[in-house]
């Protein structure tokens, strides 16, 4: 084998694509030829006989602990990256770990990490790592937002039902006035429709199907209650000869629950 063969074959050799016999010839040439060794020796040595890498002491235990308690991993990582000059997030994380009794410098904490087969370290009561707080926040935030939205839309529905009972908007359900030609036409809009519409616009559609259903039941119940209550007295009290005000019936076509009941055959 000659030097120009080395140049031609070196890539195939490193790709492990040379036949064994050719590979041995190439290796023999590399060990015998000083110019080729100078040119390719370092690369071939580096790629074919890599320097062994030792696993850091305690890494296996830290992995075991991370599997036992993944929340503590974030803070522990921040501290180590900070110590290595890689990340700036570690200052706060170190305080959090100290507070949680999980600081790596604390040998007594290490003593509670016997390895894979034992009990991994756990945060002490009263303190917890920053990562755990963040994880808990992420877990509960969507539920909190959903509950707040539900409450807000219920309040909107309740408020709009209260507005419909204001005296100036009240329908004077009096036989005399209702028959008058200038009596205001009763306009009844279910608050459910308004609230559901607002919710759909604000959230791009109902996030949880249960929310509008519960909301519908609540708002419609509120409207129904307002109709069952005796309306506020009209400015002119009816005399004993006048017919008592009739109870108004809810306009069923505006409500959703009757439609749902019909669809379900209830």
């Amino acid at each position, binding site marked *: 084998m000659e030097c120009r063969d080395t140049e031609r074959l070196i*890539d195939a050799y490193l790709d492990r694509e040379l036949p064994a016999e050719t590979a041995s010839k190439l290796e023999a040439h590399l060990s015998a030829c000083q110019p080729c060794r100078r040119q390719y020796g370092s690369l071939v040595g580096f790629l*074919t006989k890599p320097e062994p890498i030792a696993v*850091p002491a305690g*890494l296996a235990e830290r992995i075991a602990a991370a599997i036992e308690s993944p929340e503590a*991993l974030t803070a522990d*990582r921040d501290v180590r990256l900070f*110590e*290595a000059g*890689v990340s700036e997030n570690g200052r706060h994380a170190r305080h959090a770990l100290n507070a949680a009794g999980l600081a790596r410098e604390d040998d007594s904490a290490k003593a509670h990490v016997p390895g*894979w087969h034992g009990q991994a370290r756990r945060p002490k009561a009263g303190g917890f790592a920053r990562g755990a707080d963040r994880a808990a926040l992420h877990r509960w935030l969507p539920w909190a937002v959903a509950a707040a939205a539900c409450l807000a839309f219920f309040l909107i529905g309740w408020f709009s039902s209260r507005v419909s009972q204001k005296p100036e908007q009240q329908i004077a359900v009096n036989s005399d006035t209702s028959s008058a030609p200038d009596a205001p036409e009763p306009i009844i809009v279910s608050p459910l429709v308004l609230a559901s519409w607002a919710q759909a616009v604000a959230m791009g559609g109902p996030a949880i199907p249960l929310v509008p259903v519960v909301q519908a039941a609540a708002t419609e119940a509120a409207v129904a209650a307002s109709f069952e209550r005796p309306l506020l007295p009209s400015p002119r009290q009816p005399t004993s000869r006048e017919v008592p005000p009739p109870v108004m019936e809810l306009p069923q076509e505006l409500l959703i629950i009757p439609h749902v009941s019909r669809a379900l055959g209830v």
Partner: protein
Amino acid sequence: MASQEPKPSDAELVRAVRAGDREAYGRLADRYLASVYAAAIRITCNAAAAEDVAQDTFLRAYQRLDLYDMKHPFRNWLLKIATNLALNQLRSRRRERLLHERVAADEMRNGHSPVAEAAPPSRSQWQQWLGQLDESQRAAIVLFHFHEMPYAEIAQVLEMPLNTVRTLLHRGRRRLREIMGSPPMLENGSWNVAIQNG
């Protein structure tokens, strides 16, 4: 004479973990921790980052063990996870470094002396060599040469066509040869001219 128990295969251990045996996962981790850590430190060229990658790799593998296809070697599955995490780590470190440099430049402009940084850990020669390669070249070289992963699996890990992997390997080796034949580089990235001159 005490009879020696046969070593359980990876597949047996994986089945045991899926059945709820956490100790079996410990044995798997003991078996492959060295490989995973070596791949991580060679790709990230940073010991602290490599520890994170190794931790995350085993945690993620444990949490997603149901997704592991037992037709493939468990070691290669772990190395895939580790490589992806290491590449992500490099990208986020690059972003953080850029941000840090921008803040330091602003402080200098405003007349403040920049906060003294901790000295970076000393790097061995192989870290300096690999550290000068592109991330993808480095990952391809590490997986192919140091972990004997076949081209097809490297292509899957890096989400690249097989021929691109071959090209990465060839270019990476050529670059390594150039680097190895050049004077050593200082930590700040400048060439050590003083040594070269004399």
